[in-house]
């Protein structure tokens, strides 16, 4: 189970990095960035996941045998927020560049 998840995370991150490197369209690059984020978030969650355990919420009258690690979940929340801000910021830059150039194609970094 856990190995399958790792393969899935690696595939998502790899696909995203590939997209950033290969694509010329700014929107596609931004989508690729958020695909990487999803892969990373999934990876963080799997690090804290323990098979057949409950969420770390204490309720009276309920007993539990084991808990999943809550810290990676908290980290994921922060990471999701950061990912959303990256997307928003990149989109606003893309809009600005589109207004200037009339195209969404990227220009390489000048030497």
């Amino acid at each position, binding site marked *: 189970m856990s190995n399958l998840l790792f393969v899935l995370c690696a595939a998502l*991150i790899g696909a995203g*990095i590939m997209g*950033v490197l290969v694509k010329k369209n*700014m929107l596609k*690059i931004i989508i690729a*960035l958020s695909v*990487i*984020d999803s892969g*990373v978030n999934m*990876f*963080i969650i799997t*690090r804290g996941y323990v098979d057949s355990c409950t969420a770390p919420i204490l309720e009276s009258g309920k007993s539990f045998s084991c808990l999943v690690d809550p*810290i*990676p979940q908290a*980290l994921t929340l*922060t*990471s999701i927020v*950061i990912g959303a*801000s*990256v997307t928003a*910021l*990149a989109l606003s*830059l*893309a809009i*600005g*560049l589109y207004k*200037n*150039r009339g195209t969404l194609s*990227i*220009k390489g*970094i*000048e030497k």
Partner: protein
Amino acid sequence: MIPPIIPIGLYLFAAFVTPVVGRINRNARWPFALLMSLLSFVLIASLYSDAQAGYTPYWLGNWVPVVGTLMGIGLVLDPVAWLFGILIGLFSVLCIMYSKEEIGDAHATRYYSLVFLACAGSLGVVFTGDLFNLFVFLELFNFVCVGLVAYNGNERSLNASFNFLVLASLATTFLLVGIIILYSVTGTLNIAHIAYKLGALGLEPASLVALVLIFIGIGVKTSFFPLHTWMPEAYSSAPHGASMLLIGMKYGTGLYALLRILSVVFGFVGTSWLLILIGVVTMLGGVLMAMVQSDFKRMLSYHAISQLGYMILAAGLGTMLGMTGSLFHVLNHVLYKGMLFLAAGAVIWRTGETDVNKMGGLAKYMPLTALAYAVGALSISGVPPFNGFASKWIIYNATFQVNPLLTAIALLVSALTLASFLKVFHAVFLGKGNNVVKEVPATMTGPMMLLALLCILLGLFPDIALQYAIEPAAKALMNPGAYISSVLAGMFG
């Protein structure tokens, strides 16, 4: 003692209160921003004695570690953190002074907010003792950098900031994955605690993967060769005051974080040929690229990369002398490079040209700017008695102890740097030109003259800086055990 969170909090406060002040009275924005940055500078400076006394962890929310458990986020103050922190404080003051005329009135509010947020982010990276916290502050700093680079709103700056954003988010993704791997190996995020547990476990393959990922992640921010590609374009298209500010913060967020993690978390304090190799390639590559640039600020950016090579080279030697030289060079480099960016900014602001070949004869019209540029050029080339010589002399000595060939390369790069700067000095300030301009106002010459004075003073009396700031910092980086044991002091009863 003042908790180290106070200056960070003050920057955040100033970032969000400056717009409110602007609403009440537009003319009050600049004095308010200047006052806030001066106050933060004084606060950071007043942390000096605490920092020198040793590692003083400050636990956010009073989550002091109890025996066996460490849960809170700690800010750790030590001589290295203080050294980089005071540079951030100084440069925020100078940037706000300098930017008054350049930014103008219309969008000044958002500019000051961005500057304060950048200060908060980079100061957080410098003071934090927690890896995930470091990641969050680094992301905050990256976003603000993107905003500052894109500030001018023209195609060039938007393009540079888009490239920077994509590279920086890829880099921080690597960093985050590396941090998470370390977390899953050790079960903690505190730097000292990770180091303690890794010391017990030894370097497993998983930790090595984490090391590589973190090295690449912070390497992009440090911008050594070949991860530097975003940096020249981003720095040359930012507003001039912001270029100086970013140079002042780059070493706190890049080099400092890298050295801290390498030395404390992974315990690498010996000679590292990888760092030496990166340093040599960065030195040579940076200076060779700089020689073919005709854009004024791009040339300065490539020289900044080249000088970074000296710091990495000296730090990689793994000797006390090398680390001292490296940190002293950071201090000196930030001072003269900041001044060079200010001088270049003043010239570009007055003439409207960015190409050095289209300027000329400006020494007659802008004598103070020309003076600042000359002091900066002689400092960066390592000519005595300016401060660049003081730190390069230590680096030459330190490299000579390890391998004289490295000294030869360092000397060669210095000579090439001098050639490049003399050429630009001639093109911009001497000879004949078509531009008839006035000297820039006192809010712009003031920061330049202050930095020039510091450059000369540090060149004449390097021992004072070495004794009171640099050597304690180098000792702290060379002795990670003290960091670990004093941060974790409460955990073992």
